[in-house]
């Protein structure tokens, strides 16, 4: 009996501590004793990139007597932690952001803040970027970095096959010709593309051929299974069937780095590792569709910086956001991210660097498209279904008929 009582006492004691602990954190004071406003800033970067960010944060803290920013590096778990933070009302004040459709309800609209800064503030950013940092016409994040997709090619393999290198004016026909020759004359394959493409990325090919996954209302029927859309999927499947292109398990970077393929389409993410490898590569715009009568279009993978809706110190947070997106910080992050301010691109002469210029060329060619992920409410689930459909088309052990797959995808 006594023992039971003891256990009960212990349990209730712990329960009380736990409960009071929970209650305590809610009334947490955001202003510290020294009068500084505390701002929590969450980043997804890892390793040395975090060190560089910490330096920037320290610089900001030194320059501001009244604000203290702490950097929280969430790394790989970024999305999980932000989700959990939003769920429990414990979101960092300022955070990196890319997936606006999923999170915008937890973010502060920044329209009024931007207005206060004047027209020139907004105009300095590349216009296309705003589209990708907005939801339903409201801006929720200030652009920090981006990448478009471009065509990477291995110069040595082109030389070995004795053909001229790709240019910004190439069409897919040119690419196919070159890929065939390279497959015949060298031990490498001509072209690589992912067999399980991220539906978000793949829509750029549809745009380039005058199609899209859905219309403005989000209807798939008649869009994803349109003639133009089918042409795109058919072209990739045919390249694979004819043997001069390979469908890769991942992005294709591994195959490209090892010299097993001569060309692939990817973002700026791989540039650093390609440089380390000392690979002799070039970058040009994605080929256009000959019959589409327009330049190729790229999807944007953009990152921005947002303020939490629940933040108690939005003014101070905005002060930090401004610092993080100004010219100086843009310059400091070159190498981590492609700068988003046209003034920085100009002053750093980025357009003169042949491995970076095509990304900006693609950026200019890609104005005015809205990704289906911003239109369709349940994108993450649809994306998973589309991903399966695309894999049915491109996986070498299935290679299903394009019209069949797309027609059934349109019903989802």
């Amino acid at each position, binding site marked *: 009996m*006594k*023992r039971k009582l*003891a*256990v009960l*006492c*212990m*349990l209730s004691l*712990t*329960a009380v*501590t*736990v409960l009071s602990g929970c209650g305590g954190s809610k009334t947490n004071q955001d202003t510290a004793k020294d009068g500084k406003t505390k701002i929590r800033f969450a980043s997804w970067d890892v390793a040395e990139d975090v060190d560089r960010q910490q330096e920037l944060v320290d610089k900001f803290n030194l320059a501001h007597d009244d604000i203290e920013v702490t950097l929280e590096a969430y790394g790989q778990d970024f*999305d*999980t932690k932000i*989700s959990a933070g*939003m*769920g429990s009302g414990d979101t960092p004040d300022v955070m990196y952001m890319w997936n606006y459709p*999923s*999170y*915008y*309800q*937890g973010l502060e609209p920044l329209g009024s803040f931007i207005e206060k800064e004047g027209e020139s503030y907004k105009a300095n950013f590349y216009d296309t970027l705003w589209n990708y940092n907005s939801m339903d016409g409201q801006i929720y994040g200030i652009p920090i970095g981006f990448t478009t997709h471009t065509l990477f090619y291995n110069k040595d393999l082109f030389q070995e096959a004795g053909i001229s290198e790709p240019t910004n004016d190439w069409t897919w026909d040119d690419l196919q010709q070159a890929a065939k020759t390279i497959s015949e004359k060298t031990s490498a394959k001509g072209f690589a593309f992912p*067999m*399980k493409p991220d539906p978000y990325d793949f829509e750029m090919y549809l745009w380039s051929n005058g199609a899209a996954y859905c219309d403005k209302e989000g209807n798939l029927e008649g869009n994803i299974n349109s003639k133009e859309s089918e042409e795109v999927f058919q072209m990739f499947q045919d390249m694979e069937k004819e043997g001069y292109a390979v469908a890769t*398990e991942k992005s294709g970077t591994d195959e490209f780095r*090892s010299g*097993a393929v001569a060309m692939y389409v990817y973002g700026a993410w791989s540039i650093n590792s390609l440089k380390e490898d000392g690979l002799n590569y070039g970058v040009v715009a994605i080929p256009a569709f000959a019959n589409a009568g327009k330049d190729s279009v790229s999807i944007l993978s953009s990152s921005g910086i947002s303020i939490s809706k629940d933040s108690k110190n939005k003014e101070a947070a905005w002060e930090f956001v401004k610092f993080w997106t100004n010219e100086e910080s843009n310059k400091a992050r070159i190498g981590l991210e492609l700068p988003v301010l046209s003034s920085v691109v100009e002053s750093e002469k980025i357009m003169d660097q042949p491995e970076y210029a095509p990304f900006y060329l693609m950026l200019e060619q890609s104005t005015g498209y809205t990704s289906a992920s911003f239109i369709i409410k*349940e994108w*993450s*689930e649809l994306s*998973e279904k589309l991903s*399966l459909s695309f*894999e*049915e088309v491109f*996986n*070498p*052990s*299935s290679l299903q008929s394009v019209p069949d797959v797309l027609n059934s995808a349109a019903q989802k």
Partner: protein
Amino acid sequence: MKQKKFIRNATPYFFITPWIIGFLVFTIGPLILSLGMSFFDWPLTSDPVFKGFGNYTEMFTKDTQFWKSLTISLKYAAIFVPLNMAIALFLAMLITQPVNGVKIYRTIFYIPAVISGVAVSIIWGWILNGDYGVLNYLLSLLGITGPRWLVDPAWALFAVILASAFGVGTMMLIFYTDIKNIPIDLYEASSLDGASPAKQFFCITLPIITPTILFNLITSVISSFQQVTLVMLLTGGGPLKSTYFYGLYTYNNAFKHHKLGYASANAWVMFIIILILTALIFKSSSTWVFYETEAKNGKKKKGGKK
């Protein structure tokens, strides 16, 4: 006097309070919370909405992926558990043999169990690569064209099983310690009677280690249902969703699609399935698990009746 007694009785509980607190806050608390959450629709960025058993009925009636993922996980457990135990037992038998340098083998067999699941996934991703992987290279030396393990849906599940069997070391060690504990005179006596090594294994070793087999069976059934690291990193659920395990399905519902309530319901269904399976195994254990102490007690009783 009374107070003293109370303190004396309570002392052990004071010692385990740190653990109790951890258990309540990090295990029981979230457990209860998730049970509650499974009755809500909670898209994270907005407030939860109560929907009763809505999540559960949706799962069983509308969601085809639920059944698919459940089947995949069951299939995985059905192949992985016996295979893994057989390998573990085989290795344990090997490292109990009196061979020179047995300690080195023991270490080698155990090392994979120390490596983190993430590293294992990456290593196996390279080994299993259809075009450049080591495994297919070795097979090609034997004149066999290996399948594209992680691309062909017919082979992917097997590839995952292969990769997870890599972590067999822990189970091997448990078998090993138990086998080492078997009194040597049993073997000596039986060999005098002319029992072959195979006979010794089936009539002495195997019956004596049945309690360990039971333990390993239960833990590996549980862990095989919870397998998620490997499929997340090695196959991502593909190719063509052929390795979209139940654990991955739950994880994606929660953190990719932000359906926390629904994912909680998923998790609870899995919990109940594991509970039933474990109960069945326990129930069946009376017919095949042999406890030495029980046997001795039984004999004494018989003697007493006489």
